[in-house]
């Protein structure tokens, strides 16, 4: 009994029947193929792009993206022997998901940006390389070269895993033309100090009279981060806390939260001083188009408005509730994801790049961020930078997200609270309902043992 001849892998003729379609596609693709030999090699054969290169991931869009590109170019010019491969991914959870996956998959970048508030979870998950003092010292990065608030906040069990690059607070942008007409500027053309609930609402109302549309804008739709930042700022001014014991206990103060939410609801739904419906881009576009006198956002959007050619100023978000002057903030840090094949040469290349970024703090600060690298932060060059240095105090009023495995910039924690706050500002939830929702969703997270 003999079987039929074993089937080899089907040769050409069977393929040709795919006929015209693949043929034409192949023709179209061939042109591209010949032009891009490198990606083909990388895609199919997994050839290392360039030995001795530094791969660097960040999440900077907007003006930050442009500044970071300048910094990268600066590094490339100064280090022609070290190819730099810089990758910019979409901000927030997707970025951290991708960073974690790449590290777990043993294909991490050499250097990556991480928010200070996200970094601890990465450390707990064993995804980051410890930065030993002797290695840092070799590149001139001693702890006392950094703003101590940011440096200390970045230590885990006394060990360093991250180099803080900046502090980035939530700030108040104002259109100087609109504010001038509304009589909100002083003789120097700066925004007159605003303190208290009524004063802030009044300033928005006067700006609204000038613009005919809104007093202020900030992102609400599809953007839980902005409502979260605003809420955290005001709530912290009431000395409110949300999490305790590393995120395992919820200590949300209903009375304080209600006060903040009622105020936000008054500004949006009731008095229509701020639009209840604007997404991040839309809020920026409306402010840039002069449809609002104020804009609440991170300082990083400075470049957008500079590019738009409008006249504007920036200042600390006012103290509305009279407690300590707190503003929501985070820090960008540079981290080295853990990798099995780390050797001394690679480590030094990476640290050299980190140092190079710090040395270009001026470029970074032009983009609005408050520098933590003291050799620059204490220099005249920074003091002369306007309006950037006008809110340098934010570094000392900064309130970071509370620790917890589900907390940090762009995290579930921020989504839970930001979504509920956004729903209040959009008029879909009452303050009470929002607090109940926050409490129930946070409890579920707090009960869950840390997965890292």
């Amino acid at each position, binding site marked *: *009994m003999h*079987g*039929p001849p*074993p*089937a080899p*892998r089907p040769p050409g003729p069977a393929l040709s029947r795919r006929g015209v379609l693949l043929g034409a596609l192949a023709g179209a693709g061939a042109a591209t193929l010949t032009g891009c030999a490198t990606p083909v090699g990388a895609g199919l054969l997994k050839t290392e792009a360039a030995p001795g290169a530094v791969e660097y991931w960040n999440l900077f869009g907007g003006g930050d993206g442009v500044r970071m590109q300048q910094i990268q170019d600066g590094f490339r010019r100064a280090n022609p022997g070290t190819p730099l491969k810089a990758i910019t991914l979409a901000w927030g*959870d997707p970025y*951290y*998901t991708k960073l*974690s*996956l790449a*590290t*777990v998959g043993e294909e991490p970048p050499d250097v990556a940006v991480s928010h200070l508030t996200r970094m601890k979870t990465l450390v707990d*998950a*064993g*995804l980051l390389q410890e930065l030993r003092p002797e290695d840092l010292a070799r590149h001139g990065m001693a702890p006392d070269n950094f703003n101590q608030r940011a440096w200390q906040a970045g230590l885990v069990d006394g060990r360093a895993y991250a180099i803080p690059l900046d502090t980035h607070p939530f700030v108040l942008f104002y259109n100087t033309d609109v504010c001038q007409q509304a009589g909100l500027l002083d003789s120097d053309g700066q925004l007159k100090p605003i303190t208290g609930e009524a004063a802030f609402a009044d300033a928005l109302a006067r700006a609204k009279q000038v613009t005919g549309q809104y007093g202020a804008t900030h992102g*609400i*739709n*599809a953007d*839980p981060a902005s409502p979260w930042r605003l809420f955290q700022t005001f709530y912290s001014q009431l000395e409110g806390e949300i999490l305790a014991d590393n995120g395992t206990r919820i200590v949300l103060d209903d009375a304080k939260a209600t006060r903040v939410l009622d105020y936000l609801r008054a500004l949006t739904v009731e008095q229509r001083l701020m*639009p*209840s*419906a*604007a*997404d991040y*881009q*839309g809020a920026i*576009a*409306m402010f840039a188009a002069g449809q609002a006198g104020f804009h609440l956002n991170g300082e990083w959007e400075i470049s957008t408005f500079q590019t738009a050619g409008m006249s504007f100023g920036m200042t600390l978000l006012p103290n509305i509730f009279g407690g300590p002057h707190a503003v929501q903030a985070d820090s960008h840090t540079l981290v080295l994801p853990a990798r099995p094949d780390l050797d001394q040469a690679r480590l030094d290349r990476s640290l050299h790049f980190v140092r190079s970024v710090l040395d270009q703090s001026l470029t970074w600060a032009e983009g609005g961020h408050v520098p933590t690298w003291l050799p620059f932060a204490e220099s005249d060059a920074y003091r002369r930078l306007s309006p950037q240095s006008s809110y340098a105090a934010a570094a000392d009023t900064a309130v970071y997200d509370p620790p917890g*495995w*589900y907390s940090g910039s762009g*995290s*579930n924690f921020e*989504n839970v609270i930001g*979504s*509920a706050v*956004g*729903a209040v500002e*959009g008029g*879909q*939830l009452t303050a009470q309902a929002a607090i109940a*929702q926050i409490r*129930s*969703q946070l409890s*579920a997270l707090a009960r*869950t*043992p840390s*997965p*890292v």
Partner: protein
Amino acid sequence: MATTISAPDQIRTEPGSPPSGGADHRTRQGRPALLFLAPFLALYLLFIVGPALYGLVMSFFHTSLVRPGLGEFAGLDNYAEALGSSDFWWALWHTVWFTILTTPPLVVLALVFALLAERVRRGRWFFRLAYFLPYVLPSAVVALIWQWIYTPELGLLSRTVDAFGATAPNWLGDPNWAMVSLAITTVWWTLGFNFVLYLAGLQDVPRDLYEASAIDGAGPWQQIRRITLPLLARTTTLVVVLQVIASLKVFDQMYIMTSGGPNFSTRSALQYVFDVGFTDYRTGYAAAASTLFFLLVLAVSAVWLVMTRRQESEV
């Protein structure tokens, strides 16, 4: 074209008689059969069956995304947590709600358009183009375009509605509207596929039936009701089931356009799995949630099997 139609038609007109096969016949064909099946089965076991089983195992462990191995044994904890989690049930409901919003228009509109297109003499290519073109767009492109259209105050849709003197809803920003907006986008995006399925089904309706009924003086509406629709029953079952399953599996639109927001009102089952599995690193729990979700899809598929079986026995 002629061969195109004729070949599958044979299924009905000339069902291939099952080849006679005794035990020794089987052994003789066992080896070539294995060789023919090997490439597919190898990849199938490697990338579908294996991962599915691995996922099932993980659902009984506190597996972490960032830790190697399965982690601590969890028993049924993950399942108990999912079933007791309001977030999970909400995500399931959002998925079902999305399915309810998208399936009727996607089926009915596709049918109506196909019936209308059947009566068009010239330029049928244009209608195929208009309706099917969006289907070949990547979800990311669809999302970019519609995010722009939905942009409050500035977007096309908001401005159009405002121009008519009404107040445009906050399409993606209002929890009550976000899912509807995603559904509109999805109908626009995927209608073409069902449209073409119906066009194909219509070609199978024997012409002489129309002729006969025309002689009897039946108008177009009566023709559609008495001849076309009953004969399209099989196609309709297929379209409905494929549509329901596709809608239940929705992920891309939410992921790119709303990230499950605002206020989690568009978080679908798969987005929930993604959130807990990749954002929270809770792989084991995510596996349990996906297993529960799989059971839902399985139930729907079972309904389809039963329905097609019944239809086949009726024919």
